[in-house]
C-alpha cells in the first residue's frame, strides 16, 4: 500500500515536471526582442536604402512614370520649395526607418511594435488567421506574420511578415521617393537578431508596388538601447502649419496666420460676416 501510494506520488510529480517543462518550452520559443530599438542611420533625411546615397543614388527601380514624378519632386526641393509639414504618419514601409525608437512586445498571438515617431502602432498577427475579406486601409496596414525556426533548435529566430491594405499618401523617405497612388503596396519583411550581436536587429524589407518595376529589398537595422528613456511624441504640439485649400500657412508664435512664401495671398474669409 505504501509503495503504491509512493508510486502514485512519483507519477504525479513526474506529470507536474512534464507540465512545467512544456510551459518552459513555450516561454523559451520566442527570441528576446525586449527593450528599446533605435534606428541605425535614421536621421530625418535618411534615405530608404541605408546602403546607398540618397536621391538618385538610391537607384530605386521606379517605372518611367514614377521616375518622372520623383525627378519633379527633387527639382521642386532643389528650387527651395519645401513640402508642408503635416502630422500624417509615414506608414509602411517608411515607418521602419525608425526616426524615433521602437518597443517590440512579443506575445503568442500578436507581436506589437510601438513606434515613438508619430505614435505609430503596428499589430502583427501571428495567431494563424487568414486575410480578412474587408480591411479598412490604414497607414500602418494590416500585418500577418509567422515565426520561423530556421535553425531547427526549437526556438524561433525569424518573424516573417506580410503587410497589405495601406492608405496614402506615403513615400519611402523624406526625399519624396514615391509609392504608387493606387496604394496597392504589399510589404514583406524578415525580422531577426544579428547572429553575432544579439543587441542588433535586422529587418529585410521587400516592397512590392506598382511604382516599381520589380520588388525592392533593403535591410534596415536597429540597435538595442540598454537604458531606455521613453519620450512622448505629439506632432500636433509642435506643428505650426495649417493647410487651407491648396495653400499652406504658418501660425506665428503670437497666434497669427502668416504666409509661408513671399507674396502669398491672405486666406479668403468669405464665410465670416465682415460687416463692421
Amino acid at each position: 500500500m505504501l509503495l503504491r501510494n509512493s508510486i502514485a506520488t512519483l507519477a504525479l510529480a513526474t506529470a507536474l515536471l512534464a507540465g512545467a517543462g512544456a510551459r518552459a518550452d513555450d516561454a523559451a520559443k520566442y527570441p528576446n526582442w525586449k527593450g528599446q530599438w533605435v534606428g541605425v542611420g535614421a536621421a530625418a533625411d535618411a534615405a530608404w536604402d541605408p546602403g546607398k546615397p540618397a536621391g538618385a543614388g538610391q537607384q530605386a527601380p521606379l517605372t518611367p512614370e514614377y521616375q518622372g514624378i520623383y525627378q519633379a519632386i527633387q527639382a521642386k526641393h532643389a528650387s527651395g520649395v519645401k513640402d508642408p509639414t503635416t502630422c500624417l504618419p509615414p506608414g509602411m514601409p517608411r515607418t521602419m526607418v525608425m526616426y524615433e525608437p521602437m518597443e517590440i512586445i512579443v506575445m503568442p498571438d500578436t507581436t506589437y511594435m510601438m513606434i515613438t515617431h508619430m505614435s505609430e502602432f503596428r499589430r502583427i498577427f501571428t495567431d494563424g488567421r487568414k486575410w480578412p475579406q474587408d480591411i479598412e486601409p490604414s497607414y500602418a496596414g494590416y500585418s500577418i506574420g509567422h515565426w520561423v525556426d530556421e535553425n531547427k533548435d526549437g526556438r524561433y529566430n525569424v518573424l516573417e511578415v506580410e503587410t497589405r491594405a495601406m492608405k496614402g499618401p506615403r513615400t519611402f523617405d523624406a526625399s519624396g521617393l514615391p509609392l504608387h497612388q493606387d496604394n496597392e503596396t504589399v510589404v514583406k519583411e524578415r525580422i531577426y537578431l544579428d547572429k553575432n550581436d544579439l543587441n542588433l536587429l535586422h529587418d529585410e524589407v521587400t516592397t512590392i508596388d506598382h511604382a516599381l518595376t520589380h520588388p525592392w529589398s533593403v535591410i534596415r537595422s536597429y540597435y538595442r538601447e540598454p537604458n531606455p528613456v521613453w519620450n512622448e511624441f505629439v506632432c500636433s504640439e509642435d506643428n505650426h502649419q495649417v493647410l487651407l485649400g491648396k495653400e499652406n500657412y504658418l501660425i506665428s508664435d503670437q497666434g497669427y496666420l502668416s504666409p509661408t512664401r513671399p507674396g502669398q495671398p491672405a486666406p479668403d474669409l468669405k464665410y465670416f460676416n465682415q460687416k463692421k
Partner: protein
Amino acid sequence: MRDRCLLAAIVLAALTAAATGAPAAEDEHDAKFPDIGGTWVRPGAAQWDPTKPAGLRQQAPLTAQYQAIFEANLATTAAGGQEYNPQVNCLPAGMPRVMIAYDPLEFIVTPDVTYIRSDHLAQFRRIYTDGRPWPDEITPSFVGYSIGQWVEPDADGRYGALEVETRSLKGPRALDASGLPLHADNQTIVKERIFLDQANRNLLHDQVTTIDHAYTRPWTVTRSYNRDPDPVWVENNCGADNHYVSLGKETYFISADGYLMPTKKNQPLPVLKDFEQSPK
C-alpha cells in the same frame, strides 16, 4: 523504509526542479495575472463621472477658482466654442481622461509592464510592475509615468487587481469634453485600481482617483469597459482629419472646401496683419 525515503527524495527533487526552472517560474508568474489582456470598449457615457449627467451635475469638487473656470468653459460650449478642449488641436487626452476610452483600449499584460494602448489620438501607457522606484527625474508627458503593483491574490495565487499611480503629467489637459478643468500647475496625481467584475469576467472596472490642486479633495470615479472578443482596429489620425485650427485664443473651423469658418456667433476675424496681399 529505505524505499520510502528514496521515493520521497525523488519526488522532492522532481518538484524542486519544476519549481525552480527559470522559464517555468516565469510561466507560473504569468498564470498569476487576471485575464485583462485584450480589447475593452466603453459601454456608454463619455462624461468624466459616468454615473452623473455632464456639466454642473457632475458635482465636481472644484475649488472656487476652478469652478469659475469650468462655468466659463460651459459658457464657451453654449456659444459654440471649444477653446478649452485640447483635443480640438489633436493634443492627446492624457491622464486620466484617456481612460474614458473614446476608442477601444487594448491591454497587453507582461510580467514587467502592463501596456494600455488607446487608438484615440494614439496614446500609449506603460505601467511598470517590475518593482522600480520613482526615477529622480521624469520628463513630463500627457500620459505621465505610471508605476503599478499587482495585489489581492486569491487562494490560487492569482492577482485580483492592478493598483497604479501616475505622476509627471503635462498639460493642457481637461477631464472631459465639457471642459472640466485640471490645474494649470500640472501636479496631478492619478491613482487607479483596475480589476475584473466579480460576476462578469468580461467587464473591467477602473476606479480612478484624481488628486489635483483644482479640486478640494481627491475625486474618485469608476469607469468600466466591456470586453470585445473580436476587435476591428481603425487607425485614428487626428492630424489627417482635423478641421479645427486655433489662432491665438480663438478656434476656427476649416470647411470642406478649404476656407476658414467661425465656430461661434460674432467670432472675431482672424488677424491677417502678416500678409501683404489681400485674398486672391
